[in-house]
């Protein structure tokens, strides 16, 4: 049986990868979306770990909700992506600079 720390470390690593993915990524918006998914998964890891070690079912119920929301979010994100591609002919992050103006 692994200790709680191992789970939390894994979650932290996944979260860090997600954050770094968002910051370092210079190419594709799809990768950005995937990184956001990673962040959510890291959070889910924490929920499940604490739920298990504390013998409390609430955390696991929360994870279901988060998964649902993440699916919905991914769907909306991809839809926006499609529209963006139609308008700009590109999904390159480097070219999305309109916030500047």
């Amino acid at each position, binding site marked *: 049986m692994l200790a709680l720390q191992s789970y939390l470390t894994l979650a932290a690593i996944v979260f860090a990868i997600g954050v770094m993915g968002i*910051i*370092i990524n210079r190419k594709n918006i799809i990768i950005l979306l995937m990184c956001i998914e990673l962040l959510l998964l890291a959070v889910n890891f924490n929920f499940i770990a604490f739920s298990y070690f504390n013998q409390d079912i609430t955390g696991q119920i929360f994870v279901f909700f988060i998964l649902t929301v993440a699916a919905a979010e991914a769907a909306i994100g991809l839809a926006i992506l499609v529209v963006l591609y139609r308008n700009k002919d590109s999904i390159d*992050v480097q070219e999305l600079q309109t916030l500047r103006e």
Partner: protein
Amino acid sequence: MYELSLIALITPLASGLLAGLIGSKINKSFTHWITTLGIFISFSISCWILVEVFLNPSLFLNQNIYEWMSIAGFNFKAGILIDHLTVSMMAVVTFISLMVHIYSIGYMHDDPGYHRFFCYISLFTFAMLLLVMSNNLLQLFFGWEGVGLMSYLLIGFWYKKESAIQANFKAFIVNRVGDMGLLLGIAVIFSIIGSLDYETIFNSSTELVKAKISITNGYSVSAITLACLLLFFGAMGKSAQMPLHVWLPDSMEGPTPISALIHAATMVTAGVYMVARMSPLFELSSVALSVVLIVGATTALCAGLLGIVMCDIKRIIAYSTISQLGYMMVAAGVSAYSASVFHLMTHAFFKSLLFLAAGSVIIALHHEQDIRKMGGLKQYMPITYLAALIGSLSLIGFPGFAGFFSKDALIEAVAHSSTVGSEFAYYCVLIGVFVTALYTFRFLFMVFHGQSRFKGREKIKESSWVILIPLILLSIPSILIAWPTFGVLVFGDFFSDSIRQISSYELFGFEYQSPLSFLIHSFSGPVIYLSVIGIFAAWVGYIKKPELPYKISNQFTTIHRVLVNKFYFDHFYENVIAKNTAKLGSVFWKFGDIKIIDDFLVNGTAIRIQKLSTITKRMQTGYIYHYALMMVIGLSLLLAWVIIKS
């Protein structure tokens, strides 16, 4: 009596507003009836109160109408004070105002600004009554500014005339200079006593004597002296004392009834009234009294000298007014306040009479004001001539006329005074008597006697009755007013409830018995003979040998030039004060306004923000991952801070 005096105060305001607001929509007769009625009511009440006061001398009213504002424990109230001084002033003001209202019906008949004119003079009367009926300095100041405003509006009544606009501007500015003094004087009194009510001020005047006000480090003056000098400075502006007299001759640009009402009888005497009203304070400062005396005496003489060389009929009388105001100030300076106020009253009658007579001449000659183009009018306008003669005789102090009693009494007081400067003042007023007689009869002879020097002789006719009636009504008090009132007002203790009075024996140096004995007594003094010599000189110079004045003026060209240029006061103000003020203003404008405020503060701020933002906007790359990085850094810092803190 409270209600009655309130009505006397309010009716001119109400009628003036009615005439001004709806008069032009109805017709001319409504306007002059409503305003004249308003003044008549006010006049009747004033007379009634005056009679009451004569019958019951202990009558006195000091009541606040309402509280205007209350700040930090200081209460500012509007109130009415009815004492003997107020009642006398009310009667004089409303009487002259009534006469001028009637006169104006004729004089202003064809003027397009008929309604405006009547509105203004009624409002003026209201402001003047407010000034004299006030029981505190604040309300006095309010009335003071009110009459100043009305004077401004009426001098510039013919607002399409360039010179009238210049004149009212000048009057307003010069009066501002004086008013600043008055306001500062009130402030000094308020800062030490903490109240503006006359009663409180007079009761605690010892505090003013004790208090010192430091002007610079190590140098301080007594508060009472400072307050009195500042108050007198205000009076100098309003009462046209040298060197703040320059506005009064120019104010003759206004219609003649205005000159009679405002610039001869009432408003310009407000300064004298104020000094008399503040007499308990002035009595405590010998320095202030000497200043009043010397300024008054200088004005009395110098303005009289200028009257000799003027050629405009109204300006002669205007300089005469300044000179007579100087006499009143002289009387106040030697503590003969009752004589000062009495001269104020007689002067109000005979000077407004003279002005209205001059107005009658001006209108008969179709607005010709140059006395060199008049002459021989006696046969065309006998009643006007008679009125002008009575006014002139009263002005020069011909024995038996009202002006004689008032002027002689005040000269007696100067002669027996020991105030510093009283000897100088005595010689000034004595020469002034001669000068007064000279310029008055020069005016009278050049206008009414000798050869006619105008064109269109057959068209000249006597003015209409509406103009002549006020002349006749004003002639009566100009001759007779002194006989019943002189003893009571000047030598009696009539004013003792409002003016600080010294016993008359101490003041005048002889025991008064009756007007007749005073008249006989005066023959032992030089005054009467001086005025007779003055008349004789005028007769020689302007009837017997008309070429003589030209010879004299050619002989003494320098003196003549100085006089014609009015002692260069106007030049000085225009070329030194006005020009340098304009220069100073242009420095402030170019450096202070354009450089500092515009370029540095207003536009400078905008430019600096623009520069700063060109630097900071580089931070806004627009890349999502930059914002995300910033968010992460911010979040980490926040978390770190929370952890360290706990």
